[in-house]
């Protein structure tokens, strides 16, 4: 019953086509086809990449210390970088977060009024501005960065008394 319309339709739409000229080129120079990777393998690769990215993201702090204790941070920096940063035990208005050392420089993280700031010692030299102050400490260049000029003034308490 279906033959009236069905087989001609198939014959019409499944008829022979002309092969592209490129086919001969392909046969003369067979290219290596990339094997199709199963979805599961791709998912596993994606997870591995995500894990690697997470690890890389965490590396700076794996090389560092997280602490609000000035003495602990000072001791850690001295041990890791050989630099004695005269951090005050209780810097007014400043909350220490931690430190890390990499490529001959030290970074000490802190917070002023819940805003992040950084103290860089060695390896980083920035011109002073309203939010950045560059100076010298124990023979090392340091840079103090804050979110606002007011924070910068308070951040001086890390090492100095107001």
């Amino acid at each position, binding site marked *: 019953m279906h033959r009236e*319309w*069905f*087989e001609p*339709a198939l014959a019409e739409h*499944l008829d*022979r086509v*002309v092969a592209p000229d490129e*086919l001969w080129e392909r*046969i003369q120079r067979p290219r290596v086809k990339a094997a199709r990777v199963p979805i599961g393998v791709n998912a596993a690769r994606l997870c591995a990449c995500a894990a690697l990215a997470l690890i890389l993201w965490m590396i700076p702090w794996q090389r560092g210390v997280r602490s609000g204790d000035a003495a602990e941070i000072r001791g850690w920096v001295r041990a890791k970088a050989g630099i004695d940063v005269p951090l005050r035990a209780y810097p007014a208005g400043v909350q220490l977060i931690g430190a890390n050392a990499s490529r001959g420089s030290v970074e000490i993280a802190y917070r002023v009024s819940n805003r992040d700031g950084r103290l860089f010692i060695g390896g980083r030299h920035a011109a002073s501005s309203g939010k950045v102050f560059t100076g010298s400490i124990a023979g090392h260049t340091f840079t103090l960065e804050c979110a606002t000029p007011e924070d910068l003034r308070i951040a001086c308490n890390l090492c100095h008394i107001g």
Partner: protein
Amino acid sequence: MEANDREVIEACQRGDSDAFRVLFEAHKDRVYSMALRYSGDRALAMDIAQESFLKVLGSIQEFRSEACFQSWLYRIVVNTCLDHQRRGRRMLPFLGELVEAVRAPGETVLHRLMRAEVEDDVQRIVARLAPEQRVVVVLRYTEGLSYEQIAQILGCSPGTVASRLNRAHKVLERRLSHLRRVGNA
């Protein structure tokens, strides 16, 4: 097999690259069409056709001159199609058909697009058939082979071919019923 074909094949067996080009030109459309109608994907069809011809080139020494070259070639293409299926390669319709249709001369763009859409529909639905049914459909409708010829290529009985084709027809008829409505309108 005609004497000319036999000479070409014998030249191929001696490693004559010009003869292989002649063989390729004679069968390229057949091989590519089967691959395209089976896979429903131009890129995949190129892979299958390429692989088929490389298999021909690699095993032409094993071909016995008393056999039918065309059947031998069909078997290689069918096996390559099935190998690709087994490897889990994507067998889906292609957008290129639409692009091709727009480029086709002598028709209005609307007509070309409509025809391409129907063709795409048919091909997509054929590409969803079970591999053993799809092979039979391609050999029957793309190559126009008889049940006996298909049976010879697939190494089964004509009854098995008829049975597979019948099952394929039922599926295709159901899935392509909208074409009938369009045709009747």
